[in-house]
């Protein structure tokens, strides 16, 4: 919103926080970054059997400038890694990242020269969803946990936006 950087630290906001967080979590627009097999399970989650629009998320924005939540679904190869970083940088604040699947979380079954061992080496991740590929119910569980995490945030700014592990 822009105002939050100007609020001095000595002010506590409770009800404003609640309302802002509630509105952010109720209509989080995903930027479905479907790379490989997990993308197909993500598409199944968006389809009518496991409906994701009950969370307000049926608008899957193809452009990063209009999205809040980046779901990295699939294996990230080292040729694709600069592209992922660039797209993450193009997303406006506030933004969240779900790393879906084993390959995005830790490299999965591919431990070799071509796959980045976990997308958290280049971008900070909020929720990791394991599975190969995770069932739609698992992804929805991850999204619900993310909603709970969003409700505990404060609009004064988030200082933990650093990549978890230094890339080696």
């Amino acid at each position, binding site marked *: 919103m822009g105002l939050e950087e100007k609020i001095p630290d000595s002010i506590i906001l409770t009800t404003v926080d609640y309302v802002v967080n509630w509105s952010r979590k109720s209509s989080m627009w995903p930027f479905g970054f479907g790379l490989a097999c997990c993308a197909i399970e993500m598409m*199944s989650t968006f389809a009518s059997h496991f409906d994701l629009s009950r969370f307000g998320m049926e608008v899957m924005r193809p452009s990063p400038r209009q999205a809040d939540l980046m779901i990295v679904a699939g*294996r990230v190869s080292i*040729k694709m890694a600069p*592209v992922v970083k660039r797209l993450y940088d193009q997303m406006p604040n506030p933004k969240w990242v779900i790393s879906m699947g084993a390959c995005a979380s830790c490299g999965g*079954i*591919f431990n*070799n020269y071509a796959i980045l061992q976990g997308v958290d080496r280049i971008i900070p991740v909020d929720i990791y969803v394991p599975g190969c590929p995770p069932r739609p119910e698992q992804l929805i569980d991850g999204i619900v946990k993310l909603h709970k995490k969003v409700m505990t945030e404060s609009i004064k700014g988030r200082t933990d936006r650093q990549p978890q592990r230094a890339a080696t």
Partner: protein
Amino acid sequence: MTTAAKTMTLNMGPQHPATHGVLRVVLELDGETVLSATPYVGYLHTGIEKNAEDKLYYKALPMTDRMDYLAPMSNNLGYVLTVEKLLGIEVPEKVKFARVLLTELTRLNSHLVWLGTHALDIGAMSMLLYTFREREMILGVYEAVSGQRMMSTYFRVGGLAWDLPLDFDERVKEILKVFPVKMHEYEDLLSNNRIWIKRLTDVGNLTAQEATDLSLTGPLLRSTGVKYDVRKARPYSGYEKFDFDIPVGKNGDCYDRYLVRMEEMRQSLRIVKQALDGMPEGPYKAHAPGVVLPPKKDVLSQMEALIFHFKIITEGFKVPAGSYYHPIESPKGELGYYIVSDGSTKPYRMRVRPPSLINLKALNTMVTGRLIADVITCIGSIDIVLGEVDR
């Protein structure tokens, strides 16, 4: 002062809603007309072929699922058939029928996703929701058979992983009852639709000569009039016992490819019915002591079965030296596995002939001189899966 018309270079980047994954196409444009389209691939390169050289034969099997992730059982089938040929193992009849049945369900699965995403690109957005709803039934069969919705790895060297479950018959009969009605619905929506016909006819034409020159296979080649299907040319896993037709197109444009794939779906249903009706009784694994795991009750009571079980799991089985190329007909084209063995327990070289990569080369021929919207149509009509293109 003379001015030459400059062309514009447009990048359809790796992240794009209509490129079915991470494909990058660089277009040279003169206004709205495309002068050339160059695909750049490799954004999903996983090094599966190199990684498989480091694993035992049965451990490399789950990696093959993840190549063409829309038709996972086809990939498994190709690998398993090649290794069985190198070993010289004959599988029982029930295994052949079960493999054919599940592979044809896989073909249905892949064509349903193709139809949904292709229609979504062209603008018919509700097709995606319909096809994914039908697909849930097939995924229910996969889950009943192996426990996993997509990457089932149900086929093993020498047979199947476990016996078919008890509710298998009912689930497949449900599919056979529901699908013809739904396919009629899809054709009702699309086949005689004026917008669909205008967007697809005369777009992306290929002649038979160009298609064989470019080494295209699968529905792309069959839509130009060349009747080549590996299931009829060199039958594998008992396909010679089934009665089905190969649909062939005439003009080689996108509409013909759509018709060829819809007809292939109907023929797959026909094969599934024949396989279900004629499924024989029998063992679900071949009897090959050093290669195939012995039945569990023997492992718990006999000493040699226990020793074989232990040795196969820890050391793996040795495959005699040699090399073999086995093609199968995957939904995308001719998927071939060329495995070179040097007599040890790990494959020396596993080469996968990727039909999607070789078919993608035809994009430049198909869109030269056409409009940008036709590029999207053509990419959808080639039906690529980036996991297989990049491996």
